[in-house]
Protein backbone atom coordinates (compact mmCIF):
# COMPACT_ATOMS: atom_id res chain seq x y z
CA UNK A 1 0.00 0.00 0.00
CA UNK A 2 2.90 2.33 0.85
CA UNK A 3 4.26 1.74 -2.66
CA UNK A 4 0.91 2.66 -4.20
CA UNK A 5 0.79 5.98 -2.27
CA UNK A 6 4.38 6.71 -3.28
CA UNK A 7 3.55 6.01 -6.94
CA UNK A 8 0.45 8.24 -6.89
CA UNK A 9 2.42 10.95 -5.09
CA UNK A 10 5.19 10.79 -7.67
CA UNK A 11 2.75 11.15 -10.60
CA UNK A 12 0.96 14.04 -8.85
CA UNK A 13 4.27 15.82 -8.24
CA UNK A 14 5.02 15.43 -11.95
CA UNK A 15 1.68 17.04 -12.82
CA UNK A 16 2.26 20.07 -10.55
CA UNK A 17 3.56 22.40 -13.32
CA UNK A 18 0.13 22.05 -15.01
CA UNK A 19 -1.32 24.19 -12.19
CA UNK A 20 0.81 27.20 -12.93
CA UNK A 21 1.34 27.55 -16.65
CA UNK A 22 4.29 29.80 -17.06
CA UNK A 23 4.25 32.26 -19.88
CA UNK A 24 7.35 31.11 -21.69
CA UNK A 25 10.72 32.23 -20.43
CA UNK A 26 13.69 30.54 -18.92
CA UNK A 27 11.99 28.59 -16.10
CA UNK A 28 9.48 27.00 -18.48
CA UNK A 29 12.18 26.11 -20.96
CA UNK A 30 14.31 24.40 -18.29
CA UNK A 31 11.28 22.64 -16.75
CA UNK A 32 10.40 21.14 -20.13
CA UNK A 33 14.01 20.11 -20.59
CA UNK A 34 14.06 18.40 -17.15
CA UNK A 35 10.86 16.50 -18.05
CA UNK A 36 12.21 15.37 -21.43
CA UNK A 37 15.29 13.95 -19.73
CA UNK A 38 13.09 12.46 -17.03
CA UNK A 39 11.40 10.30 -19.70
CA UNK A 40 14.84 8.94 -20.61
CA UNK A 41 15.73 8.64 -16.92
CA UNK A 42 12.64 6.53 -16.20
CA UNK A 43 13.45 4.32 -19.23
CA UNK A 44 16.91 3.72 -17.66
CA UNK A 45 15.30 3.22 -14.24
CA UNK A 46 12.99 0.56 -15.66
CA UNK A 47 15.49 -1.26 -17.90
CA UNK A 48 18.72 -1.08 -15.92
CA UNK A 49 17.71 -0.75 -12.29
CA UNK A 50 14.36 -2.56 -12.16
CA UNK A 51 14.88 -5.20 -14.88
CA UNK A 52 18.64 -5.66 -14.41
CA UNK A 53 19.49 -5.23 -18.10
CA UNK A 54 22.97 -3.71 -18.61
CA UNK A 55 22.06 -1.29 -21.42
CA UNK A 56 23.91 2.01 -21.97
CA UNK A 57 22.56 3.05 -25.36
CA UNK A 58 19.88 5.52 -24.20
CA UNK A 59 21.31 8.39 -26.25
CA UNK A 60 21.10 6.11 -29.33
CA UNK A 61 17.45 5.14 -28.87
CA UNK A 62 16.65 8.77 -28.08
CA UNK A 63 18.51 9.93 -31.21
CA UNK A 64 16.76 7.38 -33.45
CA UNK A 65 13.41 8.72 -32.22
CA UNK A 66 14.49 12.31 -32.85
CA UNK A 67 16.25 11.94 -36.21
CA UNK A 68 13.73 9.36 -37.44
CA UNK A 69 10.87 11.80 -36.83
CA UNK A 70 12.59 14.60 -38.75
CA UNK A 71 13.72 12.43 -41.68
CA UNK A 72 10.36 10.67 -42.08
CA UNK A 73 8.40 13.93 -41.80
CA UNK A 74 10.56 16.21 -43.91
CA UNK A 75 12.23 13.92 -46.47
CA UNK A 76 9.58 11.20 -46.84
CA UNK A 77 6.62 13.53 -46.13
CA UNK A 78 5.01 11.11 -43.68
CA UNK A 79 2.34 12.41 -41.29
CA UNK A 80 3.96 13.69 -38.07
CA UNK A 81 2.23 11.31 -35.67
CA UNK A 82 3.06 8.26 -37.82
CA UNK A 83 6.70 9.43 -38.05
CA UNK A 84 6.93 9.71 -34.27
CA UNK A 85 5.55 6.22 -33.65
CA UNK A 86 7.55 4.58 -36.46
CA UNK A 87 10.75 6.22 -35.16
CA UNK A 88 10.01 5.00 -31.64
CA UNK A 89 9.45 1.51 -33.08
CA UNK A 90 12.82 1.73 -34.88
CA UNK A 91 14.50 2.68 -31.59
CA UNK A 92 12.87 -0.39 -30.02
CA UNK A 93 14.24 -2.60 -32.81
CA UNK A 94 17.79 -1.32 -32.31
CA UNK A 95 17.61 -1.89 -28.55
CA UNK A 96 16.21 -5.41 -28.95
CA UNK A 97 18.74 -6.27 -31.69
CA UNK A 98 21.68 -5.17 -29.54
CA UNK A 99 20.31 -7.29 -26.70
CA UNK A 100 19.78 -10.37 -28.92
CA UNK A 101 23.18 -9.97 -30.62
CA UNK A 102 25.00 -9.79 -27.30
CA UNK A 103 22.86 -12.34 -25.48
CA UNK A 104 25.71 -14.88 -25.78
CA UNK A 105 27.93 -12.56 -23.80
CA UNK A 106 27.47 -11.74 -20.16
CA UNK A 107 27.13 -8.65 -18.00
CA UNK A 108 29.64 -5.98 -18.74
CA UNK A 109 30.21 -7.03 -22.38
CA UNK A 110 26.56 -6.21 -23.10
CA UNK A 111 27.05 -2.84 -21.38
CA UNK A 112 30.17 -2.28 -23.49
CA UNK A 113 28.43 -3.11 -26.79
CA UNK A 114 25.60 -0.66 -26.11
CA UNK A 115 28.01 1.95 -24.75
CA UNK A 116 30.19 1.66 -27.88
CA UNK A 117 27.05 2.13 -29.95
CA UNK A 118 26.51 5.34 -27.99
CA UNK A 119 30.05 6.43 -28.97
CA UNK A 120 29.58 5.34 -32.58
CA UNK A 121 26.22 6.98 -33.20
CA UNK A 122 27.24 10.69 -33.14
CA UNK A 123 30.11 9.77 -35.50
CA UNK A 124 27.60 8.08 -37.80
CA UNK A 125 25.39 11.19 -37.68
CA UNK A 126 28.45 13.30 -38.63
CA UNK A 127 29.35 10.90 -41.45
CA UNK A 128 25.77 11.12 -42.80
CA UNK A 129 26.00 14.92 -42.71
CA UNK A 130 24.08 15.55 -46.00
CA UNK A 131 20.97 13.94 -44.45
CA UNK A 132 21.43 14.60 -40.73
CA UNK A 133 23.18 17.96 -40.76
CA UNK A 134 26.02 16.50 -38.65
CA UNK A 135 27.32 18.98 -36.06
CA UNK A 136 25.40 21.84 -37.71
CA UNK A 137 22.20 19.93 -36.95
CA UNK A 138 18.62 20.00 -38.22
CA UNK A 139 15.82 22.42 -37.36
CA UNK A 140 12.30 21.10 -36.87
CA UNK A 141 9.08 22.88 -36.00
CA UNK A 142 6.90 19.71 -35.92
CA UNK A 143 4.23 19.79 -33.20
CA UNK A 144 5.05 23.40 -32.28
CA UNK A 145 3.90 24.55 -35.73
CA UNK A 146 0.54 22.78 -35.19
CA UNK A 147 -0.37 23.42 -31.54
CA UNK A 148 2.11 26.09 -30.43
CA UNK A 149 4.87 26.06 -27.83
CA UNK A 150 2.65 26.57 -24.76
CA UNK A 151 0.44 23.56 -25.57
CA UNK A 152 3.48 21.44 -26.38
CA UNK A 153 4.94 22.31 -22.97
CA UNK A 154 1.74 21.10 -21.29
CA UNK A 155 1.77 17.98 -23.47
CA UNK A 156 5.35 17.20 -22.40
CA UNK A 157 4.35 17.51 -18.71
CA UNK A 158 1.28 15.34 -19.19
CA UNK A 159 3.04 12.67 -21.28
CA UNK A 160 5.96 12.45 -18.82
CA UNK A 161 3.51 11.83 -15.97
CA UNK A 162 1.61 9.27 -18.11
CA UNK A 163 4.80 7.43 -19.07
CA UNK A 164 5.93 7.36 -15.43
CA UNK A 165 2.53 5.96 -14.41
CA UNK A 166 2.87 3.34 -17.18
CA UNK A 167 6.24 2.19 -15.82
CA UNK A 168 4.80 1.98 -12.29
CA UNK A 169 1.85 -0.02 -13.57
CA UNK A 170 4.14 -2.43 -15.47
CA UNK A 171 6.22 -3.01 -12.33
CA UNK A 172 3.07 -4.10 -10.52
CA UNK A 173 2.03 -6.63 -13.18
CA UNK A 174 3.17 -10.26 -13.41
CA UNK A 175 5.73 -9.27 -16.08
CA UNK A 176 7.10 -6.51 -13.83
CA UNK A 177 7.42 -8.87 -10.88
CA UNK A 178 9.28 -11.41 -13.04
CA UNK A 179 11.61 -8.64 -14.27
CA UNK A 180 12.33 -7.76 -10.62
CA UNK A 181 13.17 -11.43 -10.02
CA UNK A 182 15.45 -11.44 -13.08
CA UNK A 183 17.26 -8.34 -11.82
CA UNK A 184 17.78 -9.98 -8.44
CA UNK A 185 18.82 -13.44 -9.66
CA UNK A 186 18.65 -14.24 -13.37
CA UNK A 187 19.86 -17.84 -13.08
CA UNK A 188 17.46 -18.71 -10.29
CA UNK A 189 14.56 -17.22 -12.26
CA UNK A 190 15.50 -19.45 -15.20
CA UNK A 191 15.90 -22.44 -12.91
CA UNK A 192 12.30 -22.20 -11.72
CA UNK A 193 11.16 -22.60 -15.33
CA UNK A 194 10.50 -18.98 -16.35
CA UNK A 195 11.36 -18.03 -19.94
CA UNK A 196 13.54 -15.07 -18.99
CA UNK A 197 14.43 -14.25 -22.62
CA UNK A 198 10.78 -13.41 -23.34
CA UNK A 199 10.59 -10.99 -20.40
CA UNK A 200 13.95 -9.39 -21.18
CA UNK A 201 12.81 -8.73 -24.77
CA UNK A 202 9.65 -7.21 -23.30
CA UNK A 203 11.75 -4.91 -21.08
CA UNK A 204 13.91 -3.80 -24.04
CA UNK A 205 10.80 -3.27 -26.18
CA UNK A 206 9.09 -1.04 -23.62
CA UNK A 207 12.22 0.94 -22.66
CA UNK A 208 13.38 1.28 -26.29
CA UNK A 209 9.97 2.52 -27.43
CA UNK A 210 9.62 5.03 -24.59
CA UNK A 211 13.17 6.29 -25.10
CA UNK A 212 12.58 6.66 -28.87
CA UNK A 213 9.23 8.38 -28.23
CA UNK A 214 10.96 10.66 -25.71
CA UNK A 215 13.57 11.49 -28.36
CA UNK A 216 10.84 12.43 -30.84
CA UNK A 217 9.23 14.63 -28.21
CA UNK A 218 12.63 16.17 -27.42
CA UNK A 219 13.23 17.33 -31.00
CA UNK A 220 9.70 18.70 -31.25
CA UNK A 221 10.21 20.70 -28.04
CA UNK A 222 13.74 21.98 -28.66
CA UNK A 223 13.16 22.46 -32.40
CA UNK A 224 16.73 21.43 -33.13
CA UNK A 225 19.07 18.44 -32.88
CA UNK A 226 22.70 17.88 -33.81
CA UNK A 227 25.31 15.20 -33.18
CA UNK A 228 26.54 17.29 -30.21
CA UNK A 229 23.20 16.70 -28.42
CA UNK A 230 23.58 12.93 -28.59
CA UNK A 231 27.24 12.62 -27.61
CA UNK A 232 28.22 9.71 -25.40
CA UNK A 233 27.91 11.98 -22.34
CA UNK A 234 24.17 12.25 -22.96
CA UNK A 235 23.84 8.52 -22.28
CA UNK A 236 25.85 8.96 -19.08
CA UNK A 237 23.70 11.89 -17.91
CA UNK A 238 20.59 9.79 -18.56
CA UNK A 239 22.05 6.88 -16.63
CA UNK A 240 23.03 9.19 -13.76
CA UNK A 241 19.38 10.36 -13.35
CA UNK A 242 18.10 7.25 -11.50
CA UNK A 243 21.53 6.49 -10.07
CA UNK A 244 22.00 9.86 -8.37
CA UNK A 245 18.32 10.31 -7.47
CA UNK A 246 17.96 6.81 -6.05
CA UNK A 247 16.62 3.86 -7.99
CA UNK A 248 14.87 2.14 -5.08
CA UNK A 249 12.23 4.79 -4.59
CA UNK A 250 9.70 5.72 -7.26
CA UNK A 251 10.39 9.46 -7.12
CA UNK A 252 14.19 8.98 -7.14
CA UNK A 253 14.60 9.80 -10.87
CA UNK A 254 12.77 13.13 -10.34
CA UNK A 255 15.45 14.23 -7.86
CA UNK A 256 18.11 12.79 -10.19
CA UNK A 257 16.81 14.74 -13.20
CA UNK A 258 16.63 17.96 -11.18
CA UNK A 259 20.18 17.36 -10.01
CA UNK A 260 21.68 16.38 -13.38
CA UNK A 261 19.93 19.05 -15.45
CA UNK A 262 19.86 21.90 -12.91
CA UNK A 263 23.38 21.42 -11.57
CA UNK A 264 24.98 22.82 -14.76
CA UNK A 265 22.59 25.81 -14.54
CA UNK A 266 23.60 26.45 -10.90
CA UNK A 267 27.28 26.12 -11.75
CA UNK A 268 27.13 28.81 -14.45
CA UNK A 269 28.92 31.38 -12.20
CA UNK A 270 31.86 28.96 -11.93
CA UNK A 271 31.53 27.69 -15.50
CA UNK A 272 35.29 27.46 -15.85
CA UNK A 273 35.40 24.78 -13.12
CA UNK A 274 32.10 23.17 -14.07
CA UNK A 275 33.42 19.71 -15.01
CA UNK A 276 35.61 19.50 -11.91
CA UNK A 277 32.64 20.18 -9.60
CA UNK A 278 30.35 17.95 -11.66
CA UNK A 279 32.76 15.00 -11.55
CA UNK A 280 33.55 15.46 -7.86
CA UNK A 281 29.87 15.70 -6.91
CA UNK A 282 29.14 12.49 -8.83
CA UNK A 283 32.01 10.67 -7.12
CA UNK A 284 30.96 11.92 -3.67
CA UNK A 285 27.31 10.97 -4.18
CA UNK A 286 28.19 7.51 -5.55
CA UNK A 287 30.73 6.79 -2.79
CA UNK A 288 29.00 8.40 0.20
CA UNK A 289 25.34 7.93 -0.79
CA UNK A 290 25.32 4.67 -2.80
CA UNK A 291 21.51 4.45 -2.53
CA UNK A 292 21.13 7.88 -4.13
CA UNK A 293 19.72 11.17 -2.86
CA UNK A 294 16.07 10.22 -2.28
CA UNK A 295 16.43 7.62 0.52
CA UNK A 296 18.87 9.89 2.35
CA UNK A 297 16.59 12.91 2.08
CA UNK A 298 13.78 10.66 3.36
CA UNK A 299 15.93 9.66 6.36
CA UNK A 300 16.84 13.28 7.02
CA UNK A 301 13.19 14.37 6.95
CA UNK A 302 12.34 11.46 9.26
CA UNK A 303 14.89 12.71 11.79
CA UNK A 304 13.54 16.27 11.60
CA UNK A 305 9.97 15.19 12.43
CA UNK A 306 8.96 16.16 15.99
CA UNK A 307 8.89 13.07 18.21
CA UNK A 308 5.68 12.54 20.20
CA UNK A 309 5.94 11.25 23.74
Amino acid sequence: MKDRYEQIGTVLILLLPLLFVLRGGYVQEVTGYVYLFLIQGYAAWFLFFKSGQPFFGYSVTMAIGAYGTIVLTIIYKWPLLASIFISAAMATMVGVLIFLATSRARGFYVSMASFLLAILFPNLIDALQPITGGRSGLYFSGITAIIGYEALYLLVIFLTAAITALFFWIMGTKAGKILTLISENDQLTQAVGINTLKYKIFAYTVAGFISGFGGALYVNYTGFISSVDIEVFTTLYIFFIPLIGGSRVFYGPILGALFVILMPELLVPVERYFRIFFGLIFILVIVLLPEGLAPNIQKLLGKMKPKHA
Partner: protein
Amino acid sequence: MILNGIITGLIMGGILSLPVLGVAVIYGITGIPNFAIGVIGVFGGFLTWYFLSFNMGLAILIGVTVCFLVGYILQRILLTPISERGGDSTLFFIITVSVGFVFEGFIRAFSPRPNISLALPRIGTINIAGFTVEGFKIFALIFAIGTLVIIRLAEEHTEVGKSWQATSQNLKLAKFVGIKTSQVFSFASGIGCALACVGAIFWGSLYNLTTSSGWDLGFLGFIVAVVGGIGNIWGGIISALIMGMVMSFSGYLLGGMWQSVILYFIVILVLIIAPKGILGSERSL
Protein backbone atom coordinates in the same frame (compact mmCIF):
# COMPACT_ATOMS: atom_id res chain seq x y z
CA MET B 1 49.00 3.89 -51.37
CA ILE B 2 48.92 0.42 -49.78
CA LEU B 3 52.44 0.82 -48.34
CA ASN B 4 51.54 4.29 -47.12
CA GLY B 5 48.43 2.87 -45.47
CA ILE B 6 50.37 0.04 -43.82
CA ILE B 7 53.09 2.33 -42.44
CA THR B 8 50.60 4.94 -41.18
CA GLY B 9 48.49 2.17 -39.66
CA LEU B 10 51.50 0.60 -37.93
CA ILE B 11 52.49 3.94 -36.42
CA MET B 12 48.94 4.79 -35.29
CA GLY B 13 48.61 1.29 -33.84
CA GLY B 14 52.01 1.59 -32.15
CA ILE B 15 51.07 4.83 -30.38
CA LEU B 16 47.64 3.47 -29.57
CA SER B 17 49.28 0.42 -28.03
CA LEU B 18 50.66 2.59 -25.17
CA PRO B 19 47.28 3.47 -23.60
CA VAL B 20 46.16 -0.07 -24.52
CA LEU B 21 49.13 -1.36 -22.55
CA GLY B 22 48.06 0.92 -19.70
CA VAL B 23 44.52 -0.48 -19.78
CA ALA B 24 45.89 -4.05 -19.99
CA VAL B 25 48.29 -3.57 -17.06
CA ILE B 26 45.65 -1.96 -14.82
CA TYR B 27 42.86 -4.36 -15.73
CA GLY B 28 45.10 -7.45 -15.84
CA ILE B 29 46.35 -6.83 -12.30
CA THR B 30 43.57 -4.98 -10.47
CA GLY B 31 40.57 -6.34 -12.41
CA ILE B 32 39.22 -2.77 -12.56
CA PRO B 33 38.26 -1.22 -15.91
CA ASN B 34 39.61 2.34 -15.64
CA PHE B 35 37.96 4.63 -18.21
CA ALA B 36 39.73 7.74 -16.86
CA ILE B 37 43.13 6.55 -18.04
CA GLY B 38 43.02 8.45 -21.37
CA VAL B 39 41.94 11.74 -19.76
CA ILE B 40 44.63 11.40 -17.07
CA GLY B 41 47.19 10.68 -19.83
CA VAL B 42 46.13 13.76 -21.81
CA PHE B 43 46.22 15.82 -18.57
CA GLY B 44 49.88 14.72 -18.34
CA GLY B 45 50.31 15.66 -22.02
CA PHE B 46 49.06 19.21 -21.30
CA LEU B 47 51.39 19.45 -18.27
CA THR B 48 54.31 18.35 -20.46
CA TRP B 49 53.38 20.97 -23.07
CA TYR B 50 53.24 23.69 -20.36
CA PHE B 51 56.78 22.96 -19.14
CA LEU B 52 58.21 22.16 -22.58
CA SER B 53 59.68 25.64 -23.05
CA PHE B 54 61.80 25.22 -19.88
CA ASN B 55 63.39 21.85 -20.59
CA MET B 56 62.09 18.98 -22.72
CA GLY B 57 63.38 16.12 -20.52
CA LEU B 58 62.12 17.78 -17.34
CA ALA B 59 58.74 18.51 -18.94
CA ILE B 60 58.24 14.86 -19.96
CA LEU B 61 59.41 13.72 -16.52
CA ILE B 62 56.91 16.05 -14.80
CA GLY B 63 54.03 14.87 -17.03
CA VAL B 64 54.78 11.16 -16.62
CA THR B 65 55.50 11.40 -12.86
CA VAL B 66 52.33 13.38 -12.13
CA CYS B 67 50.28 10.79 -14.08
CA PHE B 68 51.97 7.95 -12.18
CA LEU B 69 51.14 9.64 -8.87
CA VAL B 70 47.56 10.38 -9.93
CA GLY B 71 47.08 6.71 -10.92
CA TYR B 72 48.73 5.53 -7.68
CA ILE B 73 46.69 7.79 -5.37
CA LEU B 74 43.43 7.24 -7.28
CA GLN B 75 43.80 3.48 -6.84
CA ARG B 76 44.84 3.80 -3.20
CA ILE B 77 42.13 6.13 -1.92
CA LEU B 78 39.22 5.43 -4.23
CA LEU B 79 39.30 2.30 -6.40
CA THR B 80 40.83 -0.30 -4.06
CA PRO B 81 38.48 0.58 -1.15
CA ILE B 82 35.47 0.34 -3.50
CA SER B 83 36.78 -2.96 -4.87
CA GLU B 84 37.13 -4.31 -1.32
CA ARG B 85 33.50 -3.34 -0.68
CA GLY B 86 32.52 -5.55 -3.63
CA GLY B 87 32.08 -2.93 -6.39
CA ASP B 88 31.24 -4.36 -9.82
CA SER B 89 32.41 -3.38 -13.32
CA THR B 90 29.43 -1.06 -13.87
CA LEU B 91 30.20 0.87 -10.68
CA PHE B 92 33.86 1.21 -11.70
CA PHE B 93 32.78 2.36 -15.13
CA ILE B 94 30.68 5.16 -13.59
CA ILE B 95 33.26 6.13 -10.97
CA THR B 96 36.18 6.24 -13.41
CA VAL B 97 34.15 8.22 -15.98
CA SER B 98 33.41 10.74 -13.17
CA VAL B 99 37.14 10.86 -12.37
CA GLY B 100 37.67 11.54 -16.10
CA PHE B 101 35.24 14.50 -15.84
CA VAL B 102 37.36 15.94 -13.02
CA PHE B 103 40.63 15.74 -14.97
CA GLU B 104 39.04 17.02 -18.17
CA GLY B 105 37.78 19.87 -15.98
CA PHE B 106 41.34 20.58 -14.78
CA ILE B 107 42.52 20.77 -18.40
CA ARG B 108 39.64 23.07 -19.40
CA ALA B 109 40.05 25.31 -16.34
CA PHE B 110 43.80 25.73 -16.27
CA SER B 111 45.14 25.22 -19.80
CA PRO B 112 45.76 28.54 -21.53
CA ARG B 113 44.86 26.91 -24.87
CA PRO B 114 42.18 24.29 -25.72
CA ASN B 115 44.21 22.80 -28.58
CA ILE B 116 47.92 22.07 -28.31
CA SER B 117 50.71 20.43 -30.28
CA LEU B 118 53.87 19.27 -28.54
CA ALA B 119 56.95 20.39 -30.43
CA LEU B 120 59.35 17.48 -29.87
CA PRO B 121 62.53 17.02 -32.00
CA ARG B 122 61.78 15.32 -35.33
CA ILE B 123 64.93 13.08 -35.74
CA GLY B 124 65.02 13.47 -39.55
CA THR B 125 63.38 11.10 -42.06
CA ILE B 126 63.83 7.45 -43.03
CA ASN B 127 63.24 5.98 -46.50
CA ILE B 128 61.35 2.64 -46.57
CA ALA B 129 60.82 1.12 -50.07
CA GLY B 130 60.69 4.57 -51.63
CA PHE B 131 58.32 5.92 -48.98
CA THR B 132 59.61 8.63 -46.64
CA VAL B 133 58.67 8.32 -42.98
CA GLU B 134 59.46 10.77 -40.19
CA GLY B 135 62.15 9.34 -37.88
CA PHE B 136 60.07 10.40 -34.87
CA LYS B 137 57.19 8.18 -35.98
CA ILE B 138 59.51 5.18 -36.23
CA PHE B 139 60.88 6.09 -32.79
CA ALA B 140 57.32 6.14 -31.40
CA LEU B 141 56.67 2.67 -32.83
CA ILE B 142 59.96 1.25 -31.50
CA PHE B 143 59.30 2.88 -28.10
CA ALA B 144 55.88 1.21 -27.89
CA ILE B 145 57.26 -2.23 -28.79
CA GLY B 146 60.25 -1.70 -26.44
CA THR B 147 57.90 -0.79 -23.56
CA LEU B 148 55.90 -3.94 -24.15
CA VAL B 149 59.04 -6.11 -24.12
CA ILE B 150 60.34 -4.40 -20.95
CA ILE B 151 57.02 -4.89 -19.13
CA ARG B 152 56.89 -8.54 -20.20
CA LEU B 153 60.50 -9.14 -19.08
CA ALA B 154 59.92 -7.28 -15.81
CA GLU B 155 56.84 -9.41 -15.17
CA GLU B 156 58.78 -12.66 -15.57
CA HIS B 157 62.19 -11.81 -14.12
CA THR B 158 61.76 -9.33 -11.28
CA GLU B 159 60.31 -9.66 -7.78
CA VAL B 160 57.85 -6.83 -8.46
CA GLY B 161 56.75 -8.50 -11.69
CA LYS B 162 56.24 -11.84 -9.97
CA SER B 163 54.14 -10.19 -7.27
CA TRP B 164 52.04 -8.64 -10.10
CA GLN B 165 51.50 -12.05 -11.63
CA ALA B 166 50.66 -13.65 -8.30
CA THR B 167 48.17 -10.88 -7.46
CA SER B 168 46.43 -11.12 -10.82
CA GLN B 169 46.25 -14.94 -10.70
CA ASN B 170 45.13 -15.51 -7.11
CA LEU B 171 44.50 -12.52 -4.89
CA LYS B 172 43.80 -14.47 -1.70
CA LEU B 173 46.92 -16.64 -2.06
CA ALA B 174 49.03 -13.58 -2.88
CA LYS B 175 47.81 -11.92 0.34
CA PHE B 176 48.46 -15.16 2.26
CA VAL B 177 52.12 -15.33 1.17
CA GLY B 178 52.63 -11.75 2.34
CA ILE B 179 52.37 -9.74 -0.88
CA LYS B 180 51.08 -6.24 -0.19
CA THR B 181 48.37 -6.46 -2.83
CA SER B 182 47.01 -2.95 -2.30
CA GLN B 183 50.49 -1.60 -3.06
CA VAL B 184 50.70 -3.80 -6.15
CA PHE B 185 47.32 -2.45 -7.33
CA SER B 186 48.37 1.16 -6.77
CA PHE B 187 51.70 0.65 -8.53
CA ALA B 188 49.98 -1.00 -11.52
CA SER B 189 47.49 1.85 -11.72
CA GLY B 190 50.35 4.37 -11.60
CA ILE B 191 52.24 2.56 -14.38
CA GLY B 192 49.05 2.36 -16.49
CA CYS B 193 48.42 6.12 -16.21
CA ALA B 194 52.11 6.89 -16.89
CA LEU B 195 51.94 4.77 -20.08
CA ALA B 196 48.80 6.63 -21.14
CA CYS B 197 50.70 9.89 -20.60
CA VAL B 198 53.56 8.72 -22.85
CA GLY B 199 50.95 7.73 -25.47
CA ALA B 200 49.35 11.18 -25.17
CA ILE B 201 52.75 12.90 -25.55
CA PHE B 202 53.45 10.96 -28.77
CA TRP B 203 49.91 11.60 -30.03
CA GLY B 204 50.19 15.30 -29.19
CA SER B 205 53.49 15.52 -31.00
CA LEU B 206 52.39 13.73 -34.18
CA TYR B 207 48.81 15.04 -34.33
CA ASN B 208 47.40 17.36 -31.62
CA LEU B 209 45.69 17.25 -28.22
CA THR B 210 42.41 18.92 -27.36
CA THR B 211 40.62 19.18 -24.01
CA SER B 212 38.48 16.17 -24.96
CA SER B 213 41.23 14.06 -26.62
CA GLY B 214 41.54 12.03 -23.43
CA TRP B 215 38.14 10.44 -23.95
CA ASP B 216 39.00 9.47 -27.54
CA LEU B 217 42.36 8.05 -26.50
CA GLY B 218 40.92 6.31 -23.44
CA PHE B 219 37.85 4.82 -25.14
CA LEU B 220 39.95 3.87 -28.15
CA GLY B 221 42.54 2.31 -25.85
CA PHE B 222 39.84 0.46 -24.01
CA ILE B 223 38.03 -0.91 -27.03
CA VAL B 224 41.29 -1.96 -28.66
CA ALA B 225 42.12 -3.78 -25.43
CA VAL B 226 38.66 -5.42 -25.50
CA VAL B 227 39.20 -6.61 -29.08
CA GLY B 228 42.58 -8.09 -28.13
CA GLY B 229 41.15 -9.74 -25.01
CA ILE B 230 41.07 -7.34 -22.08
CA GLY B 231 44.00 -7.82 -19.69
CA ASN B 232 45.88 -9.80 -22.38
CA ILE B 233 48.95 -7.67 -23.23
CA TRP B 234 49.91 -9.48 -26.49
CA GLY B 235 46.30 -9.54 -27.65
CA GLY B 236 46.08 -5.81 -26.96
CA ILE B 237 49.18 -5.02 -29.01
CA ILE B 238 48.09 -7.15 -32.00
CA SER B 239 44.67 -5.57 -31.78
CA ALA B 240 46.21 -2.05 -31.64
CA LEU B 241 48.19 -2.73 -34.82
CA ILE B 242 45.12 -4.15 -36.61
CA MET B 243 42.99 -1.21 -35.47
CA GLY B 244 45.69 1.22 -36.55
CA MET B 245 45.49 -0.36 -40.05
CA VAL B 246 41.69 -0.19 -40.01
CA MET B 247 41.83 3.52 -39.09
CA SER B 248 44.47 4.20 -41.70
CA PHE B 249 42.75 2.39 -44.61
CA SER B 250 39.20 3.50 -43.76
CA GLY B 251 40.53 7.06 -43.61
CA TYR B 252 42.12 6.69 -47.06
CA LEU B 253 39.23 4.86 -48.72
CA LEU B 254 36.15 6.46 -47.18
CA GLY B 255 37.41 9.71 -45.67
CA GLY B 256 38.10 10.77 -42.09
CA MET B 257 34.38 11.03 -41.18
CA TRP B 258 33.92 7.26 -41.55
CA GLN B 259 37.15 6.31 -39.76
CA SER B 260 35.71 6.02 -36.26
CA VAL B 261 32.34 4.69 -37.50
CA ILE B 262 34.10 1.71 -39.13
CA LEU B 263 36.37 1.24 -36.12
CA TYR B 264 33.57 1.17 -33.54
CA PHE B 265 31.42 -0.98 -35.82
CA ILE B 266 34.18 -3.60 -36.01
CA VAL B 267 34.62 -3.52 -32.24
CA ILE B 268 30.89 -4.05 -31.66
CA LEU B 269 31.01 -6.99 -34.10
CA VAL B 270 33.97 -8.48 -32.22
CA LEU B 271 32.09 -8.06 -28.95
CA ILE B 272 29.13 -9.89 -30.47
CA ILE B 273 31.08 -12.70 -32.19
CA ALA B 274 33.98 -13.18 -29.75
CA PRO B 275 33.21 -11.33 -26.51
CA LYS B 276 36.53 -12.36 -24.94
CA GLY B 277 38.56 -10.82 -27.76
CA ILE B 278 40.72 -12.25 -30.53
CA LEU B 279 43.28 -13.83 -28.17
CA GLY B 280 40.91 -14.36 -25.25
CA SER B 281 40.94 -12.66 -21.88
CA GLU B 282 42.77 -13.86 -18.80
CA ARG B 283 40.00 -12.28 -16.76
CA SER B 284 36.37 -11.83 -17.54
CA LEU B 285 34.51 -8.55 -17.18
